[in-house]
């Protein structure tokens, strides 16, 4: 049992995601916009912010301290985190302890990226040294070809067809239609999904996240009113990139997570899993224990399609977009908004408990980072 943090999440905000942001948009301008919006949402004054954490691929060579300077913040606690899809929960894991220990009282966490075409190619080709040395010169063209293999293996092991993955894409698009902030909101059918152009078989366009520019923000404070953190667990590099990639580190921590939280998957009102590809969203739902009997196809048909289980209710990255490192915070922001009753048309009625996963950092074959958090509206 890990000691529960007394820190609470008091606010969440998003700088609108955009496929084609206005001229002059920069990573720091997006992060600043998310910062201003989260202060507006919480009524917290800039002078009260004494902790700042930032996750971004494209802020470099600037760091959190550059942002603190330009935002006019004087942090007692400062942190950079570049762990992509795991960065949001990673930042919370540190920030909540800083608040518990008294290092800071009001922590703003920011996450976001703005990509030009060149930025994105550089990110994909030079993602890490291993990618630059062994993959980009194949050329591998980014993670799609790797996750195409993982998806195909998952299909083979679990007897899945493309239409099974389509249920995730269709369901998330339905949620996105209720989210004014999602970049793709028009409803899609299973036929639309199946007919979308191939990227790398078996992945088609609607299996791949649209790259967007955008930023997300959270505010954490000490004990008081806010969204509680019932449990947070992480395990990174659990298999040294030597497993099948379809069982993530989340599987290793799920038991501890639910035990710490004192609740189980069936009690979750809102679920946010990291959805870089439908196969990985499905893998994490399975790892968390949502599938139970291991019948992935039946789960997708019954729980996702028929019962409309509230998974990735913002539309997720598949429909709302992937704004680089903000992909590690989109599920947190959405879950906080849901628990605060601020999710607008897509509000899940009386949402009290949420689980969010982080996943990512494709070191060689698949994501190495995994973390998960259970949130509660008291």
């Amino acid at each position, binding site marked *: 049992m890990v000691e529960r943090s007394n820190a609470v999440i008091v606010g969440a905000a998003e700088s609108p995601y955009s496929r084609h942001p206005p001229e002059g948009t920069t990573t720091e301008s997006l992060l600043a916009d998310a910062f201003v919006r989260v202060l507006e949402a919480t009524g917290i004054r800039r002078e009260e912010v004494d902790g700042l954490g930032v996750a971004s691929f494209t802020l470099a060579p600037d760091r959190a301290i550059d942002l603190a300077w330009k935002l006019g913040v004087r942090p007692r606690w400062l942190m950079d985190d570049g762990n992509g899809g795991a960065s949001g929960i990673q930042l919370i894991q540190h920030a909540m302890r800083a608040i518990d220990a008294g290092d800071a009282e009001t922590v703003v966490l920011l996450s976001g990226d703005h990509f030009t075409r060149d930025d994105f190619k550089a990110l994909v080709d030079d993602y890490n040294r*291993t990618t630059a*040395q*062994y*993959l980009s*010169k*194949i*050329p*591998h*063209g980014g993670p799609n*070809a*790797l996750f*195409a*293999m993982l998806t*195909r*293996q998952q299909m083979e092991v679990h007897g899945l067809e493309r239409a099974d993955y389509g249920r995730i894409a269709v369901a998330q698009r339905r949620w996105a239609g209720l989210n004014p902030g999602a970049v793709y909101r028009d409803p899609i059918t299973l036929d639309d999904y199946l007919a979308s152009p191939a990227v*790398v*078989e078996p992945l088609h366009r609607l299996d791949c996240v649209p790259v967007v520019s955008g930023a997300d923000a959270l505010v954490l404070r000490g004990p008081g009113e806010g969204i509680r953190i019932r449990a947070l667990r992480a395990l990174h590099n659990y298999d*040294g990139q*030597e497993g099948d990639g379809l069982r993530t580190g989340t599987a290793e921590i799920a038991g501890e997570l639910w035990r710490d939280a004192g609740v189980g998957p069936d009690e979750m009102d809102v679920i946010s899993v990291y959805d870089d590809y439908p196969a990985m969203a499905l893998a994490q739902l399975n790892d968390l224990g949502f599938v139970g009997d291991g019948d992935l196809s039946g789960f997708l048909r019954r729980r996702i399609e028929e019962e409309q289980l509230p998974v990735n209710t913002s539309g997720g990255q598949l429909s709302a977009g992937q704004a680089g490192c903000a992909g590690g915070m989109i599920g947190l922001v959405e879950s906080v908004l849901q628990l605060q009753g601020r999710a607008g048309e897509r509000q899940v009625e009386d949402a009290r408990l949420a689980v969010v996963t982080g996943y990512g950092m494709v070191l*060689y*074959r698949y994501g190495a980072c995994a973390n998960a958090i259970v949130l509660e509206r008291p």
Partner: protein
Amino acid sequence: MSARVFVCASCGRAVFPRRLLCPDCGGREFRDEQVETATLEDFSDRGQVKLGAVRAPSGPLLIARVEGDPRRGGEVSLDEDGDVPVARA
């Protein structure tokens, strides 16, 4: 023609890519092992280029550029283009 994997000088554990420390024993020294043939466990076709997941007999899985007409589960011969493993079906 062959491709390299890396074998821990202390315990003989093979890895690819090379690590800083052996995952099993923590050893710091690795020697090259030349691998001539391997099993193509899977591949994906990007059109101009195919990527494959290639299992060396000593254990490591390599992501390789695949040439020829690949078949899942089939044997491939290995080569290198600089650091990039190349698998010929």
